[in-house]
């Protein structure tokens, strides 16, 4: 108990101090969970075919990382260390079930579109990674910011990949045709000139290639990210 008492006497730092701001901005750039830590790749492959799916998936993951980090951080001093991973898993799984049930009841159309992918948030390594690496050792407020930052970093990358894949794979963005009508027999716009959608883009391997390209660009712009060998 004495330990906690001492901590509360330390001078309060402002809610958005420099250190706290870094918690949000870091995962967006030089510590992105997907491109730098290479976590959450599996779902980045599965649901980046359409931008709208990526957006909703990103929002759901942000909710789970923020709420989960908060809960784990509040419980961090009472969780027995022997079963901490299981406890984290239970928290993540419960939050995902809550998201799924609420979506089903209040946003049935979106829930239908996402179908199994909401359940798959549990398997997203970013969530367990942030619980274990950050929330277990930090106070609630920084944990919330860290969860938000990482969720946002994940969501941002998802949308970026989805923009490439939907634009070149289906010729649409958010369901709106960009290059004209591609239906056989009634082509218009670019399609009338012989342009064809790249079906490779729709298949999961292309997501890996795009993520690879993003990592390449990011590393060549920022030398500090390059390994020295």
């Amino acid at each position, binding site marked *: 108990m004495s330990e906690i008492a001492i901590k509360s006497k330390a001078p309060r730092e402002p809610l958005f101090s420099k250190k706290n701001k870094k918690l949000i901005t870091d995962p967006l750039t030089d510590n992105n969970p997907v491109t730098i830590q290479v976590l959450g790749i599996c779902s980045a492959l599965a649901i980046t*075919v*359409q931008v709208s*799916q990526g957006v909703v998936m990103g929002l759901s993951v942000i909710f789970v990382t923020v709420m989960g980090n908060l809960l784990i951080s509040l419980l961090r001093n*009472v*969780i*027995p*260390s*022997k*079963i901490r991973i*299981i*406890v984290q898993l*239970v928290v993540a799984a*419960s939050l995902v*079930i*809550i998201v799924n*049930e*609420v979506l*089903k*009841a*209040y946003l*049935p*159309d979106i829930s*239908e579109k996402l*179908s*199994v992918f909401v359940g798959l948030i549990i398997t997203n390594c970013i969530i367990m990674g942030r619980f274990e690496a950050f929330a277990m050792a930090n106070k609630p407020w920084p944990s919330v910011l860290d969860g938000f930052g990482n969720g946002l970093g994940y969501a941002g990358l998802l949308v970026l990949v989805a923009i490439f894949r*939907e634009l070149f*794979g*289906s010729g649409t963005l958010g369901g709106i045709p960009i290059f004209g009508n591609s*239906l056989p027999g009634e082509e218009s716009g670019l399609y009338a000139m012989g342009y064809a959608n790249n*079906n490779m883009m*729709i298949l999961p391997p292309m997501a890996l290639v795009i993520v690879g390209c993003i990592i390449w660009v990011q590393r060549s712009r920022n030398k500090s990210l390059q390994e020295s060998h």
Partner: protein
Amino acid sequence: MALNKESNAYTFGFAIALVIVVGTILASLSLGLKDKQEKNGVVKKKMDILKAMLPMEEANKIDRSNAEENFNKYVDLKNALVLDMNGKPVEGNAFDIDIKKDYKNKTLKESDKKFPLFVAQKDGKKLYVIPIIGKGLWGPIWGNLCIGEDMRTVVGASFGHQGETPGLGAEITQQFFIDRWIGETILDENGDFTPFEIVKDGSGPKPQKVDGITGGTITSKGVEEMANRGLSVYATYFKSNMQ
């Protein structure tokens, strides 16, 4: 008394408490939202039936808020029929039959399955809506086929899926694919059932042939299997009732 957080008793105690708390929260949430979710399911079913029977412009106007009202306007559930596997009408409530559940149920005998047939009225003409279910590449696919007053021409359709690949198999829900079904006939002049074939070679405009979806072959084949299996039951009923 200091709590020993490394002790087995504490660990067990924490685990039990956690399970009880989480279990209670999730159970009450599930119970609390169940009514709303079930109601969503009913509305969705009505929307699917309406989308199959209405022309595109009107079908696009159907959403969750006006589905109930339009459904009551066009479909009288009192006229709905329940058929057995031989196409004979039997007793039962057509709307409550869950063909998805029956399809998945491996222990249910084919002869015990019931098949709903919804009868709708639009502009003084009778329309027959047939719900069908099958499987695509990744999961279940389903749909409704609407047969016109002559009991043999497809006048409308709607398809749905759970997790087909967006841009490929998932395209079955699009209007261009539905349009390929409209005008096909399910019975020949003698009233015998004529199955469909999903084709790749672009011969879709020919009778009994429907163009599949590029890159969505397995889903398209799933639609073919689902439509033929589903319609074969109703074909016998239509044959015996054709004027």
